[in-house]
């Protein structure tokens, strides 16, 4: 078996500082690209998807007088969209985290808290609906509790990019409360798209740093 002497660049020439600098840059970028749970292109794609879905809802309800919200037929599509989005996020996180062990991985308690936050958000919507306030009037309410929960969980880990993503989702939810029921769908679409594109830019910058 032939061994390449380990002081060479692999082609028999000496490994120069220029080659080392280029290799160091490339290896660092490549490793970060493979280890980052949310690749920029995935976040950007999810941003475009969420924009398309919520703007489609906004277009379908903006002509309603009086406002009644999305039809019952639209709800399964919205839910399927949320599930697809969540599956994408979880799938890429699992792929990036394969073989990685240690404190950066989410602990079971943190996963349970994040899941409970979604359950609490849905329970709140159900309670509001029982009190006569349909989610159709406050569609972005569902984002506030999970967004804030994620921001707090990430703050405890000093993961500032995670804090950004949680806080931006919560802010979109809160701003949507200030809009009209029709406008809230547009706020949700544009706001979440902007948040995801911002996250994509942050991750791209981290990979290049």
């Amino acid at each position, binding site marked *: 078996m032939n061994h390449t002497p380990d002081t060479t660049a692999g082609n028999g020439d000496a490994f120069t500082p*220029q080659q080392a600098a280029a290799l160091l840059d490339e290896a*660092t970028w490549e*490793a970060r690209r493979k280890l980052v749970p949310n690749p920029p292109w995935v976040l950007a794609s999810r941003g475009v998807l969420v924009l398309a879905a919520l703007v489609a809802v906004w277009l379908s309800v903006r002509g309603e007088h009086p406002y009644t919200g999305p039809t019952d037929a639209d709800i399964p599509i919205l839910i399927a969209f949320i599930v697809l989005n969540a599956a994408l996020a979880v799938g890429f996180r699992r792929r990036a985290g394969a073989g990685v062990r240690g404190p950066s991985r989410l602990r079971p308690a943190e996963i349970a808290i994040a899941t409970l936050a979604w359950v609490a958000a849905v329970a709140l919507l159900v309670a509001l609906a029982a009190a006569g306030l349909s989610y159709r009037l406050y569609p972005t309410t569902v984002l506030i509790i999970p967004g804030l929960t994620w921001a707090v969980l990430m703050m405890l880990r000093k993961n500032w990019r995670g804090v950004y993503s949680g806080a931006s989702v919560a802010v979109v939810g809160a701003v949507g409360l200030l809009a009209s029921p029709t406008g809230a769908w547009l706020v949700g679409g544009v706001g979440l798209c902007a948040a995801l594109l911002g996250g994509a830019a942050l991750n791209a910058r981290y990979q290049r740093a």
Partner: protein
Amino acid sequence: MPDDALDPLIHVPTRLKIVATLAALPEGDTLSFTRLQDMIGLTPGNLIIHLRKLEEADYIASEKTRNGTVSLTNVALTGHGRKALDNYTHALRDLLGDHL
């Protein structure tokens, strides 16, 4: 500054790739041998040789765990290894000026 200012243990293409890859992990995290092998694109035997050299210098630490009958090896950059990579990067910067 002469080239010999560069840490000879890191100034080897394969080991530079290994160290740079492990440095991309958050501090305290470890990477499994198989994932590292997959990321670097080396044969197991070749990777073991380089990891052994880095471990002898205390640049990396490895731990073996058992999952049933399967033995798993996880590796991580030590604090000493991280500092060595920092020093190496600074030495490269000094050598290359603004080109890095």
